[in-house]
């Protein structure tokens, strides 16, 4: 009843000053609409760019690293307190690229609670031969199902399909650069020669395009068995293990643990792609800074108009107070007014922002790197809409608070005496 009364008075004020209220509301509308558009577009683009690398990158990569042995035999001998050991010109020991007891290792790692998926891989160098030409190449033997599910390999295969690879032990997906240089396409045969001289004739079922020329010029994918066959190794021969985690944050500690546990090189995603994190967070900061500036400007608009309004309504405020409305009541009336304007302006802003971002998401956008992407990426995440409306309400609350508290403190006697 009493609440309704305050709403009634506030509503009356808005209706009788509709034009000014709309202008104030429009400030919020444009602020929020720009915020939504900007953040949807920026985070969409960020997601795409990050995806280019991060989707393709395992959270932890296990392999055998070539390098000098860290602890040399001499180090095991206790030194005297006055001198120390110095070995010059340490050379690395020849090392197998095969991971020791890989199937057992994979099984063990799969049981870690942090781990979402473990995918084995066989990497090897090979030559692509066509006629008299030998092209240097890298062949990755993959578990196709895992690779598609966790690393979205299919997104980078065009034309062709990754499914064909899993069904056929004599199939290959070649890098786009390789296909171009050898002038081959889907359905053609390609000859692979391993460093040890094994030769294998495979049928091309697709081309792979990462967008990075140096990768596309050498990289090809076959299934795990085919790669093992190419280099003449048994089923247990695995050179790399790629791990995806449930939580990215766990990558670093887990990598260190695995390194200690299994005596193997483990690289986490943060170490491998440090610059990407930085790029993303800077883009996010810019987006938020611009949006918040816009909303603050909108807040000033509301502050201004409410201030003017209260100046105009001095008499009304004096009457309300004289007839028994308390300062808090008067303040509530103006806060209600400000926040109604904020809510209405903000809601329209959300709608407008959605329309803008939808429009952008329909604009054609072709990039080499991602054959499956045809329009601008937009992130329609609901969270941003909540942030937008929350910010609209908070901004209008503060914009309304100052003028409203002035109205609260205003002494009706001053107004009456002035007459």
């Amino acid at each position, binding site marked *: 009843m009493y609440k309704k009364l305050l709403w009634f008075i506030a509503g009356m*004020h808005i*209706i009788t000053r509709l034009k000014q209220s709309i202008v104030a509301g429009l400030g919020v509308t444009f602020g929020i609409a720009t915020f939504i558009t900007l953040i949807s577009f920026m985070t969409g683009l960020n997601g795409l760019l990050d995806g280019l690398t991060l989707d393709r990158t395992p959270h932890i990569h296990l392999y055998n690293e070539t390098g000098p042995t860290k602890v040399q035999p001499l180090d095991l001998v206790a030194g005297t307190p006055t001198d120390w050991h110095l070995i010059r010109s340490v050379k690395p020991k020849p090392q197998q690229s095969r991971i020791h007891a890989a199937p057992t290792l994979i099984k063990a790692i799969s049981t870690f609670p942090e781990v979402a998926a473990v995918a084995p891989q066989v990497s090897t160098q090979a030559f692509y031969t066509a006629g008299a030409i030998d092209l240097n190449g890298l062949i990755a033997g993959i578990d196709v199902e895992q690779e598609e599910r966790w690393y979205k390999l299919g997104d980078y295969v065009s034309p062709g399909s990754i499914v064909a690879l899993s069904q056929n032990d004599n199939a290959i997906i070649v890098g786009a650069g390789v296909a171009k240089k050898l002038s081959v396409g889907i359905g053609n045969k390609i000859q692979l020669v391993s460093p040890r001289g094994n030769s294998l004739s495979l049928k091309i079922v697709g081309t792979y395009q990462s967008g990075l020329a140096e990768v596309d010029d050498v990289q090809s994918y076959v299934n795990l068995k085919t790669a093992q066959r190419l280099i003449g190794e048994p089923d247990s021969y695995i050179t790399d293990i790629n791990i995806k985690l449930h939580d990215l944050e766990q990558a670093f500690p887990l990598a260190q643990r695995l390194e200690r546990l299994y005596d193997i090189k483990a690289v986490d995603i943060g170490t491998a792609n440090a610059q990407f994190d930085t790029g993303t967070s800077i883009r996010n900061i810019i987006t938020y800074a611009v949006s918040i500036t816009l909303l603050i400007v909108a807040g000033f608009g509301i502050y201004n108009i409410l201030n003017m309004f209260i100046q105009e309504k001095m008499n009304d405020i004096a009457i309300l107070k*004289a007839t028994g409305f308390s300062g808090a009541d008067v303040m509530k009336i103006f806060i209600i007014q400000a926040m109604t304007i904020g809510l209405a302006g903000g809601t329209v802003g959300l709608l407008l922002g959605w329309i803008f971002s939808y429009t952008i998401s329909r604009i054609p956008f072709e990039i080499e790197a991602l054959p499956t992407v045809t329009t601008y990426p937009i992130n329609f995440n609901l969270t941003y809409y909540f942030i937008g409306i929350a910010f609209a309400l908070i901004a209008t609350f503060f914009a309304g608070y100052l003028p409203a508290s002035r109205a609260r403190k205003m002494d009706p006697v001053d107004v009456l005496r002035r007459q």
Partner: protein
Amino acid sequence: MGRKSVIRAESINKFFQQPVPFQVLKNISLDVASGEFVSVMGKSGCGKSTLLYILSTMDTDYTGKLYLNDQLITGLQAEQLAAIRNEHIGFVFQFHFLLPEFSVLDNVSLPAKKLGRKNSEVIREDALEILRMLDIGHIAEKKAYRISGGEKQRVAIARSLINSPSIIMGDEPTGNLDSKNSANVLSIFRNLATTEGLTLLIVTHDKDFARQTDRTITMEDGIILP
């Protein structure tokens, strides 16, 4: 007299600090009893409006004691004073002071809605009845800025009556009206005092007006003349 005191002031002093320190009210004491129609007269600047604002609880910057219905109200919180004004004191100002965008009916009903004792239907009926009693029932739905000055003053009176207050205070309620409307307002007040037994305290310049009241308090230079 034997009648109940409605508003009683005991040695009220009031200073203005600006533009120069100045004592507006000097040790004012007065008592208005229930059912009395009292007028306050005096030249401009004698402090009669200032006294009225203090008696009306809107001005709290004074020394002395103020009682409403024998209860001390000096020193109460602003919120409590607002509630007291709402329930016990009706106001009529020189410049009618209505909310211009609201209808006449809304203007009259607002204090009752604030009080919240009755539901909107009853308040509406009450307001209409008071408007009819003051012969302005026909303009109930009009916006306040569309009615004439005389009508506005009668609406202001209607508003002051809506919560059946203990006292009605007027700050030169006829000061801005022509003689016909002044006479009208005066007769309304006279009528309310006689037939309804209402207590009224009206500040005025108008000698004719003062003559019609039960008692006239004359002020000069911040004191009440005997």
